[in-house]
């Protein structure tokens, strides 16, 4: 079967505007979903879940969220780490205040809380743009982390200053706390990721998404043809923060189990997610996946290669790993500034015409 649109005629605009217009892509997408839901749970173990798969799923949600803000709406933010912390501390407060509340709802509610906080800190975007906005979100980053480390109410006055996630179950399987198995951790994160990607895709392909992109591409013209900038920017902040909040809540409850704001959600996390978005491709849902994969899977693979295969000492490998990943980011940005998603598109376009390029 060749990779072609031909013979794959669209008889309606509905079919034409679907997510995967090419049959082959659609098929591949279903295959990946099947593997993710049915295949991987059979083989996943603690090592793979903890070192690669679960963090990849969680950070992809954050990258999806940040991509909506930066890639689709053009609003630069360096507050991702803090917004993840809002999700984490939100879920912690909810879990401890309402022990009966199902963890699924806890995480969604933590996302909603983060959306609210995101809108609040998004208000400056109505007056300032670009780097100035980035600096304002940086202020949000430091303020929120300060709040979570200094105001004891947020960590329920625990003497260590840490928050830790009690055990919670979904359908009788513990998904948080020490008894959670690799499979259940994986499944809950996967479900949240698939739902998040679907949500992000729907929002970006409709009228709201077009208004975001209009603001991104030319804000004054957008306003003159009818986009309400206030509405567009604040909804982008809300949706973006919602997803980032969910990601933070999952990171804390499912993955880390215990956390301290300054350490787990510092400015380095803001940059990590920002790099994912840039390397993956701004304004692309696929890019969020690709960027998260690159920055989560890449280092682990390198470590496996250097330490396990080549037998290098761990600390040396760790330093080299940072240098290699850094160099790769640079090379990547020079070769393809529009990210992995753009590279992938180019390959597909070539493939579509192959073997006759004209």
């Amino acid at each position, binding site marked *: 079967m060749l990779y072609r649109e031909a013979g794959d005629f669209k008889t309606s*605009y509905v079919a034409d505007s679907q997510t995967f217009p090419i049959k082959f892509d659609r098929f591949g997408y279903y295959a990946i979903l099947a593997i993710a839901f049915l295949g991987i749970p059979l083989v996943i173990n603690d090592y793979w879940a903890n070192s690669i798969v679960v963090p990849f799923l969680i950070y992809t949600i954050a990258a999806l969220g940040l991509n909506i803000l930066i890639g689709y709406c053009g609003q630069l933010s360096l507050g991702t780490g803090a917004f993840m912390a809002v999700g984490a501390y939100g879920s912690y407060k909810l879990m401890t205040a309402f022990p009966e509340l199902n963890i699924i709802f806890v995480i969604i509610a933590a996302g909603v809380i983060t959306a609210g906080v995101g809108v609040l800190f998004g208000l400056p975007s109505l007056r300032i743009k670009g780097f100035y906005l980035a600096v304002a979100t940086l202020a949000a980053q430091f303020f929120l982390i300060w709040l979570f480390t200094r105001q004891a109410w947020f960590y329920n006055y625990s003497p260590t200053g840490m928050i830790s996630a009690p055990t919670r179950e979904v359908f009788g399987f513990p998904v948080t706390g020490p008894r959670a198995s690799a499979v259940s951790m994986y499944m809950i994160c996967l479900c949240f990721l698939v739902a998040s990607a679907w949500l992000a895709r*729907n929002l970006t392909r409709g009228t*709201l998404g077009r*208004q975001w*992109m209009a603001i991104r591409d030319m804000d004054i*013209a957008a306003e003159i043809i009818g*986009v309400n900038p206030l509405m567009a920017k604040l909804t982008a902040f809300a*949706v973006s923060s919602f997803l980032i909040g969910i990601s933070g809540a999952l990171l804390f409850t499912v993955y880390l189990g215990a956390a301290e704001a300054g350490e787990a959600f510092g400015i380095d996390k803001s940059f990590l997610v920002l790099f994912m978005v840039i390397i993956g491709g701004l304004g692309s849902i696929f890019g969020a996946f690709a960027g998260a994969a690159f920055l989560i899977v890449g280092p682990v693979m390198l470590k496996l290669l250097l330490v396990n295969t080549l037998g290098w000492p761990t600390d040396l490998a760790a330093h080299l790993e940072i240098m290699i990943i850094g160099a790769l980011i640079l090379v990547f940005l020079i070769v393809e500034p529009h990210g992995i998603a753009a590279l992938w598109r180019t390959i597909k376009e070539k493939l579509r015409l192959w073997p006759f390029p004209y």
Partner: protein
Amino acid sequence: MLDTQSDEGYITADGRKIGGVAMEMRNITLRFGGVVAIKDISFDIRWGEIRAIIGPNGAGKSSMLNVISGFYHPQEGEVIYKGYKRPKMKPYQVARQGIARTFQNIALFEGMSVLDNIMTGRMHHMKANMLQQALWWGRASREEDENREQVEKIIDFLEIQHIRKTPVARLPYGLKKRVELARALAAEPSILLLDEPMAGMNVEEKEDMCRFILDVNDEFGTTTVLIEHDMGVVMDLSDRVVVMDYGKKIGDGTPDEVRGNEDVIRAYLGVSHD
């Protein structure tokens, strides 16, 4: 000539019906610091007509369009729209009242496809809330299809089917101007503002654009305000012309009338300045 037109409108020589006053600009004065871009100008726009604004560079034509779109707020004067004085409002609120436009320097959304650009023009016809859109459910998906159908009609009308999916950034200048017209038309505006839609085009592209503007006006009765430098085009297309120079109105009437106007001739022959 103007006195003989009744308030209810009139029929043009080529048989089109021109209605009553759609919008009236009353004593508009617009200043930027010390620069007076518009000096006490009044004129009206009637339903269904093609109203041209002409004048030398820097005369204040684009500024006038920006006043109509609510992007500039004049220091003095008022805008009467559909019989009511328009309060000070934001540009997007003006757009929502049925005023769409194109720009002198193309202002398309470069990162989006032609189709998405034109679909953006239809945003006021799409009312699904955020939750419905997020779930692609009910109104959201239905609206998308209905509006896509409308957009396809405009795409056919302007003969840009072949570039539907092309990213706007890849288009040549002439086609960009056409896509911008499509985006404005997609709004189904009551008043369409065109700021030099033919500037920088070759003869063939100009002819196409002229035809489109006339066809739009003919078929949908769209009231059009047109800024254009090419006098031939203005004389062919417009029902009435406002002539501006140095922020002042120096002529107003049918193309034949303004052509005979002394001040206009002077402004264009460059007697007062070049």
